[in-house]
């Protein structure tokens, strides 16, 4: 009986293909917007989260805003690093400067730091070496260039031993970092160069540390608490004297934003699915009226209310599920295309969103099919048989 109902529904749908297609279009568009929007948000989120993850989730950044008369100096960092929860600490003083090589010059951001910065930030060298502790101690005028800075100034990156001038002072190039292809560096832009902290602080006229990076030994949260306690003690328990953040709190915030975003977009798409459902109901009502005679004949030869009800309900369900399938296929096509165009980010349909689309479409088919199907089932056989339309 069920198989027969499926067959009847199929023949009813195919007997008027154009109308069935237009009815499905509402569901197709609804499913497509749901799946594509949610998948785009998820894909972008995934890409951004993995970027943040690659920056090092165990890194803690501290910015000091008010030193309360007891500023941090380089030698204080050892005190922080002596805590068991903390692996390494590095200062990072930044200033903007102009770097020159012969006739080519560029605006660069100069980072004054120490040797441990290399590991905390997870940097990678392609030539030479990074800043060493002796460079810091001796205030050597040496510089490590980022790939972009080397490219800008020299047009090549194998330049160890060359020299450049930064704000009029001569620096020897000791290393060049590997090219950073991540999205974050693209977003941040700018050309970075790294010099010993002592050199940078002298050039900037800022002998104290206002910003530092900390790497946790094991657990990021324990390390963060340790740093916080140290700073609170130093700055007279004033929580507003400094800000402390780690990458996992950033990625948590990111996650909250994107999940809200995908819920919002999904909700909007769900509304269009609902509109599609109303379209199905509309056409089913027309169809029930058109097929009054058929209903009468079926009833005369022995179809009960349940059989008629099932027939029309299955028809509505089939229209919405077919629409759903077409919608999913189109979404898959669109997402493949976007992935191809976007290049670095891959967008794929998650099983979850496919499940939601199928479930939602079947619910809509059922709910909006119920009223027309019931209307068909309740037709009086004699009147239905007499109907001429």
């Amino acid at each position: 009986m069920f198989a027969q109902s499926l067959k009847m529904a199929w023949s009813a749908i195919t007997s008027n293909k154009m109308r069935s297609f237009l009815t499905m279009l509402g569901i197709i568009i609804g499913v497509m917007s749901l799946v594509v929007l949610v998948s785009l948000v998820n894909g972008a989120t995934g890409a951004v989260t993995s970027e943040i993850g690659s920056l090092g989730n165990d890194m803690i950044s501290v910015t000091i805003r008010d030193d309360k008369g007891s500023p941090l100096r380089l030698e204080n960092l050892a005190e922080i690093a002596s805590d068991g929860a903390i692996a390494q600490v590095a200062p990072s003083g930044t200033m903007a400067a102009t770097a020159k090589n012969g006739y080519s010059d560029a605006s660069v951001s100069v980072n004054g730091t120490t040797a441990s910065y290399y590991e905390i930030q997870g940097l990678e060298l392609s030539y030479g070496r990074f800043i060493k502790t002796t460079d810091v101690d001796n205030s050597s005028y040496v510089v490590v260039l980022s790939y972009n800075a080397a490219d800008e100034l020299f047009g090549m990156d194998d330049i160890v031993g060359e020299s450049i001038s930064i704000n009029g002072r001569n620096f020897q190039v000791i290393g060049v970092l590997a090219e950073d292809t991540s999205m974050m560096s693209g977003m941040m832009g700018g050309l970075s160069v790294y010099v010993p902290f002592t050199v940078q602080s002298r050039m900037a006229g800022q002998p104290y540390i206002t910003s530092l990076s900390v790497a946790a030994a094991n657990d990021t949260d324990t390390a963060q608490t340790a740093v916080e306690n140290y700073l609170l003690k130093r700055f007279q328990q004033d929580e507003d004297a400094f800000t402390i953040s780690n990458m996992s709190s950033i990625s948590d915030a990111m996650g909250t934003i994107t999940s809200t975003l995908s819920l919002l977009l999904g909700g909007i798409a769900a509304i269009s699915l609902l509109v599609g459902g109303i379209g199905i109901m509309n056409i089913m009502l027309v169809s029930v009226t058109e097929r009054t005679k058929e209903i009468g004949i079926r009833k005369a030869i022995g179809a009960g209310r349940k059989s008629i009800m099932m027939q029309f309900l299955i028809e509505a369900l089939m229209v919405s599920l077919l629409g759903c399938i077409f919608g999913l296929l189109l979404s898959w096509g669109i997402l493949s295309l976007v992935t191809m165009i976007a290049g670095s980010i891959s967008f794929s349909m998650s099983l979850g969103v496919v499940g939601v689309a199928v479930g939602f479409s079947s619910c809509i088919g059922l709910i909006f099919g119920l009223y027309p199907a019931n209307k068909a089932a309740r037709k009086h056989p004699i009147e239905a048989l007499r109907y001429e339309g």
Partner: protein
Amino acid sequence: MTAASKPIITMQNITKIYNIGGEEVRALDGASLTIHEGEFVSIIGPSGSGKSTMMNIIGCLDVADEGEYMLDGQSIEQYSEEELARIRNKKIGFIFQSFNLLSRMTAMENVELPLIYQRLPVEARKKKTNAALERVGLTDRGHHKPTELSGGQQQRVAIARALATEPAILLADEPTGNLDTKTGNDIMSLFHELHAAGNTIVLITHSEEVANQAQCRIRIIDGRVTEVE
């Protein structure tokens, strides 16, 4: 008519009242009749005489307001629509003036439809469908749609559909009304064959000529059975 054959239809004082525009219309007013197994009976009456109402009640499309109706040993009372549908499906084979075939389906699918509602398995359905189509001489037309068939052939498909379930009675409402004289005569001779094969046939018509071909005539005027001959 043999005295030994059992009655298939027994009606006692059947009354059906319609309310049309606030006025009570007695479509049937105490009609009584008996039809036995294997009989070929025609019910004749002018339009408005109540013969359509009679057909609806015999065919279990409607129930009487008063009186008793026994069909094949079963009392048809105030049944629910679902139960009436089941009785129609098993006991009644309808044949209509306008054939009433489903145009989207082939002849074979049309004949198969009442068997589907009986929830028979596929093999049994195929067997019965083929037997019924063979009975009306349309075996080779099974895959045609009604629109590809002539009027006479369409009516034969309708008769095959009525026969497929092996019902207690064949209930034909003006079966020749939409056909030309020659085709009409062919259909009537098919009815005679079916009667000879033992089917009980109730034929409703307004035409004396058609009615006279039946073994027994029941005349209805103003909602009453006036004459049984």
